[in-house]
């Protein structure tokens, strides 16, 4: 791997870490809000479990964010990694 490729790799690593940190922040806010809503529900009228709507509605967004933070890769990243693998194999 040449010097420039190493720099690009470091940049990608930094971006990946930032993405994961944003996800952790999002998940923490989500968790705290859900606990807060659950307590409001618990202290008020418990006959109708309305807290499940934000739990699942916002939960879908948190799940999508998790996929973006841990699974999704930019097409350019995939291309560069594939080329590096091929170069190493040669």
């Amino acid at each position, binding site marked *: 791997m040449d*010097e*420039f490729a190493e720099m690009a790799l470091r940049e990608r690593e930094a971006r990946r870490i930032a993405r994961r940190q944003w996800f952790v922040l999002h998940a923490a806010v989500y968790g705290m809000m859900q606990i807060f809503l659950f307590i409001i529900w618990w202290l008020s009228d418990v006959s109708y479990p309305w807290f499940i709507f934000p739990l699942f509605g916002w939960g879908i967004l948190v799940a999508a964010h998790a996929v973006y933070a841990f699974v999704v890769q930019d097409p350019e990243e995939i*291309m560069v990694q594939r080329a590096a693998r091929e170069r190493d194999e040669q």
Partner: protein
Amino acid sequence: MNWVLAPYRDPQTYRTAAYLVTGLVMGVFDFVVIITGLSLGFGLAVTVIGIPILIATFLVARSLATFERHLARNVLAAPLPRRRLISEPEGRGYLARLRGLVTSRRSWSEIAFLLLRLPMGILDFTVVVTVFALAFGGFVYPWLIVAGIDSSVGGWVIDTLPESLFYVPVSVLFFIVGGRLIQAWGEVSRRFATLFLGTVGRDEIKREVADLIARSGPVDAYQILRDVEFRLGDGPFLDATRVQAALVSLEEMGYISASAEGSLMVYRAA
């Protein structure tokens, strides 16, 4: 104290405020032009005249977006690329370029920005005017009383000095946080502009890289990145991975060849 005064000493705060205030005017103008063009063009598309109107609207949208990009980059300091008005490649024929103009992600992203500029511009204008009015308005009432001018807020007539001092604490509070609020809202606007106007397609970067290698002979990737940055500008739309991907793609297509020289790869036209 420095935390309070630093935004007021920073010229960028006033540039940001100017950009936000003009957002209302620009938003109305952009929205009216694009909506008129698109509705007229699509409405008359069944007749011959609708298609040229639509094409003209896309060209006008490009021009407006180019101006907006220029404004956001120079006044708001948004990290946006410098782009040619027509970025579709030459040499593929007039019709192919026209199709590129209508179908490209760039065009639709720019049109979305121009349409959303109106609601965003209303918010921008409201935030700046409210913050400045609250930050400085309260200090004006005592001076008006000294000058013998009565004023009123809602139905309340302010005609004595103690009454005129009522809003001073409010203004002090808003003066303390006002500069920071303008800067924070400027950041929101900067991100909004970057989201819609700050993207550069993979093909475009590839073309820039290929063009550079063809013109300048053997170069290393650092030099390529520097030169493409010089042409397009520096921002999140351009990084080492994107340049590396363009080089890999061009190498695979057989347009360039790479050879190791020391710790660096050197690229030349094949």
